C-alpha cells in the first residue's frame, strides 16, 4: 500500500493561497502539489499569513438568501431545544380552544416585519415552522412564546369577538326592527322585519298589488312560511332595479337574513329552503364573434 501511496503522490499536504509550506515543519518524501490554483512565479510574502480580511457575517451567506435561511435555522433550533417539552396538564379547556387556530401575519405584513422579501412558498415554510412550535404542549415555554409573538396577527374583529363572544354587527335596533339587504340579478331590496301580525308592504304598496304573479308572492313569503312565523312578523321592503322575479327573490333573501338576526336557530331551516344563499347568476355578457352570449352566427360552409 505504501508503494501505491508513493505512486499516487499522496503524501503531500496542501495549501491554497500563495504562502508556501515554509511555515509548516512536516517533512515529506515526495512533494507533489495537486491543487486547482496555478503556480505563481511571484515570491511568497510572510505578511499574507497575518492578513486579516473581511469575512461575511452570516453563516448562510452563500445560500443567496441568508436572512431567510438564518431565520429557518433559528426556528428549527428553537424547536429542537424544546422537543421534549411537557406542558402543565391543568390548562383550561377554553384556553385550549382559543389557541388551536393560530392566526399568523400574512405574507406582506410578515415581509415588512422581518425586512426580508418573502415569496409565498417561503412564507408557507415559515408558517410551517411556526405551527410546529405553537403545537407544543401548552403552556408554551417562555422563549418560544416570546419568539412567536411578533408573528401573530391581531384582527380588530377577532378582538371584538373575543370580548363579546358574538358578532356585534347584527342586532335589532331601538324599535325592534331587523334590517337586511338582499340582491338578485339587478335588483336590490332593503328589508325591515319587525314583530307584528303578518303585514307585508313593498315600496309602500301591499304585496297583492305590487306582485301580480303568484310565483313572486310565494317567493316573498317563503322565509316566513317555511319557519311558520307568517303571522308573527311584519315586513317593510324598499326594492328597486331589475324585474319582478329579481325583485321578489331579492326581498326573499333580505327577509331571510333579517329573520336570522331575530333568531339564529332558524338558519338550517332557511338554508334548506334556499333563503340564505345569494343567487350569483347574472346575465352573461355578449362575446364578439357570436350573436349573443352563447349563440353563434349561422355556420357557413364556404
Amino acid at each position: 500500500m505504501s508503494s501505491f501511496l508513493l505512486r499516487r503522490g499522496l503524501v503531500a499536504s496542501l495549501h491554497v493561497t500563495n504562502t508556501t509550506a515554509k511555515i509548516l515543519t512536516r517533512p515529506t518524501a515526495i512533494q507533489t502539489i495537486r491543487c486547482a490554483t496555478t503556480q505563481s512565479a511571484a515570491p511568497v510574502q510572510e505578511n499574507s499569513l497575518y492578513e486579516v480580511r473581511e469575512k461575511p457575517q452570516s453563516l448562510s451567506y452563500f445560500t443567496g438568501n441568508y436572512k431567510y435561511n438564518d431565520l429557518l435555522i433559528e426556528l428549527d433550533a428553537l424547536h429542537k431545544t424544546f422537543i421534549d417539552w411537557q406542558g402543565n396538564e391543568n390548562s383550561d379547556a377554553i384556553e385550549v380552544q382559543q389557541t388551536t387556530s393560530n392566526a399568523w401575519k400574512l405574507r406582506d405584513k410578515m415581509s415588512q416585519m422581518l425586512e426580508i422579501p418573502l415569496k409565498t412558498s417561503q412564507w408557507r415554510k415559515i408558517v410551517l415552522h411556526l405551527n410546529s412550535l405553537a403545537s407544543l404542549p401548552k403552556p408554551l415555554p417562555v422563549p418560544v412564546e416570546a419568539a412567536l409573538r411578533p408573528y401573530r396577527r391581531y384582527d380588530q374583529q377577532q378582538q371584538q369577538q373575543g370580548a363579546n363572544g358574538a358578532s356585534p354587527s347584527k342586532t335589532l335596533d331601538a324599535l325592534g326592527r331587523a334590517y337586511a339587504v338582499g340582491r338578485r340579478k339587478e335588483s336590490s331590496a332593503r328589508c325591515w322585519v319587525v314583530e307584528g301580525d303578518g303585514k307585508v308592504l313593498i315600496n309602500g304598496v301591499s304585496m297583492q298589488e305590487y306582485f301580480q304573479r303568484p310565483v313572486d308572492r310565494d317567493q316573498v313569503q317563503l322565509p316566513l312560511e317555511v319557519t311558520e312565523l307568517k303571522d308573527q312578523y311584519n315586513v317593510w321592503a324598499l326594492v328597486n332595479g331589475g324585474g319582478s322575479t329579481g325583485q321578489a327573490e331579492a326581498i326573499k333573501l333580505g327577509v331571510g337574513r333579517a329573520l336570522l338576526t331575530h333568531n339564529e336557530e332558524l338558519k338550517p331551516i332557511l338554508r334548506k329552503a334556499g333563503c340564505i344563499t345569494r343567487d350569483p347568476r347574472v346575465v352573461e355578457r355578449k362575446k364578439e364573434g357570436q350573436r349573443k352570449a352563447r349563440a353563434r352566427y349561422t355556420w357557413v360552409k364556404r
Partner: protein
Amino acid sequence: MASRAILKSVVPCTGRVSHNIQKSSLRAFSTVKPSRQQAPVNEQSTPAEALKDLVPPSNASLKKPIWRAVAEAAEPITPYNMSIGRLLAAGLHLGHSTSLWEPATLPFIFGTREGISIINLEHTLVYLRRACNVAREVAYRGGNILFVGTRPGFQDLTVDAARRCEGYHVSTKWIPGTLTNAHQVLGRHATPDPNDPGKAPQTFKPDLIVLLNPLENNIALAEAQLNTIPVIAITDTDYDPRRVTYPIPANDDSIRGVELVAKVISTAAKDGALRRKQLLDKKDKEARFTRGER
C-alpha cells in the same frame, strides 16, 4: 438488511474496536471472543445483559437516550483518533450497485458483495486524513470554508459542521451563479455601503468547498473549478474521483457516515482556526511588546 450479511464477511477489523458501535451485530468483529460462546446460555441470554458493560454508569438520571449517551461518552470524533473500525461502524464502506459503478473508482474498491461494491476503508482513511489536513491549513491561513450538503437528510449536519468551525453552509439548493454571478446572487441581499449607496456591494468567495453529495451538485463543482477553488468531496463508487481536487472515497448515502466525515473535517478546520487565533494573538503581543520597549 444486506449490510449485516456483508459486515460478517468483509475486512476483519484491523484497528481497535471503539465502543460507539451501535449495532450489536458488530460484536462479531471484536478481538475479544464473544461471551456467548463461552458462558452458559442462561446467564447472558438477553442482548441487554451482554451490553451492560457498554452502558456508562448512571449515578444521575439519564436525560438522553442510552444510545446517544454511549456514542457521546465514547471517544470524541476528531481527525486524530479515526480508525477503520469507526468508518466501518458508520457504514462508509458500502458502495453502490456494481452495474452503476464508475470505472475510475477501481483503485478504491476492495471487492464486490451482494451486487454492491465495497470501498477499501484503508484508502478512505488516508484520503480523509488528507482532506482534514487541507481543511486545517486553509483555516490556519484564515480561509473561508463552505460546506455544501443539499440532500434532505444532510441539512442539520451541514449547518452543524459549518457552525463548529466558523465556516459557511449551503444546506438547501445551491443557486447556480453563486460564484460566477456573485454580484447578482449574493449582492442582491447585501446591505449597501452607508457612505456610498451607489457602489456595488462587496461579495465574497469561499477558499475551500466541502461537497457532501457531489453527484447532485455538478453546477457547484463547475463553478468552483471556474473560480479555481479546491473542492473536497465524498465520492462514491458511481462518481469519478478525478473530478474533484480532494476526493474521499466513501459512502455518500448513509447519513451517519456523512455526519462522521463532516464532523471530522470541521473539527480539523476548527483546530486550524484555533491555531490561527493563537498565532495572531502571539503576533499582537509581540507588536505591543516592541512598542512598549520603544
